[in-house]
């Protein structure tokens, strides 16, 4: 019966587990390669500025004198270009995404300098 073709399919699906997650309660599982956000090991960074020059959207800012590295989270397109060009391999791609927000989200990292107070 051509009319009942889809009905049998749907009835079968009635007895299976739902295909969707209850999202805010059950968190999304990430895969190993998922490109979520850029993370930095700031103590290994030499502030060469390569990442900021190669970034297609100009989301990364590097200040050599202040030993500061910052990123505009919502400007970043997760292309992982900076991770590849980094000579010290101190940048990495982490799984979790940046949380949604109304304004711009800027994360600033300072290197620990021995004669300065360490950042908290």
């Amino acid at each position, binding site marked *: 019966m*051509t*009319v009942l*073709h*889809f009905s049998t*399919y*749907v009835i079968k*699906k009635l007895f299976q587990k739902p*295909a969707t997650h209850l999202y805010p309660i059950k968190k999304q599982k990430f*895969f*190993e*390669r*998922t*490109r979520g956000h850029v993370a930095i090991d700031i103590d290994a960074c030499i502030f060469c500025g390569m990442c900021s020059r*190669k970034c*297609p959207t100009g989301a990364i800012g590097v200040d050599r004198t202040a030993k500061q590295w910052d990123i505009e989270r919502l400007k970043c*397109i*997760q*292309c*992982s*270009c900076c991770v*590849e060009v980094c000579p010290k391999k101190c940048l990495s*791609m982490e799984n979790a995404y940046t949380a949604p927000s109304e304004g711009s989200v800027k994360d600033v990292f300072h290197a620990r300098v021995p004669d300065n107070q360490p950042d908290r």
Partner: protein
Amino acid sequence: MSKRSIVPFGPQHPVLPEPIHLDLVLEDEKVVEAIPSIGFVHRGLEKLVEKKEFTEYVYVAERICGICSFMHGMGYCQAVENIMDIKVPDRAEYLRTLWAELSRIHSHLMWLGLLADAFGFESLFMHCWRLREQILDIFETTTGGRVIFSVCKIGGVRKDIDKDTLKGIVTILDKMQKELKELTDVFIEDYSVQHRLVGVGVLTKQEAHDVGAVGPMMRASGIAQDMRMLGYAAYKYLDFEPVVENDGDCYARTLVRIREIYQSMNLIRQCVEKMPEGEIEEKFKGMPQGERYERLEQPRGEVIYYVKANGTKFLDRVRVRTPTFTNVPALLKVLQGCELADVPMMVLTIDPCISCTER
């Protein structure tokens, strides 16, 4: 003689989340003429090439479209590689083909869902997209992105897939094929679906050739033209025939796309079987000089990349001719003489991607 009236269609329309506007000239319920109007999302991405280095432009090229994103990056890379005479390693070519075919499955499944949505078959739409989700998961495990992969680069690919994952992909596809069969049978045999598709929007073989239709639109009208036959990437090593239907109506276009999903699954199996070991990228030096037209087969049809380089790291010009751009005249052809109620269906069967079209 009946009175003529003009009905505007779009740019916001429930069946189509993309901005295309049509002025439909009606005689009673029949469409006599249609005038398209696009340009709501023109972003000028082609101009951006003058400000980005040619290696960086891959990221821009990938963002031209959200569905055939991988193939845009691949087309651009191929054009530059051919200008610079870079020989891409075999394994990279196979990997590119694999991702390209997975993109085709994902795009066609999405389109099937949208078609079901257009004729009001909501649960069929949901089930198509449920299957598509598995493909997106494959993308995420292998590349790290669900929609925009950023794995293509000039000279090769960025990421490799190991043996177990490759086998896993084939297992997922085998399982999916069984379920897909049940779903596509609904499209092929269901009475109400046939009622909306058979004999609607006929484009004859001659008309298809004259208006320059491409892709599934052309193949549904009986012209066996598939750019994959040119043998770019790993297609030269794979065994396949273009999918052709002869009726030229909406039903034939649906059949072509359904059969292409199975064909793509078959191609992926061949890819996994034949994939050689080895390097995945070729290092290169120097700047491109020269110009080239590169053709690829996207899910929606033939895409053309024109790259003109002047020997510096900034290119002179990149031009992308996307499949929807040439399918718009074909759409105008099929719209003439159709019922007003069938217009959304007709617009959907060309598989429009307006943001691709305007770049």
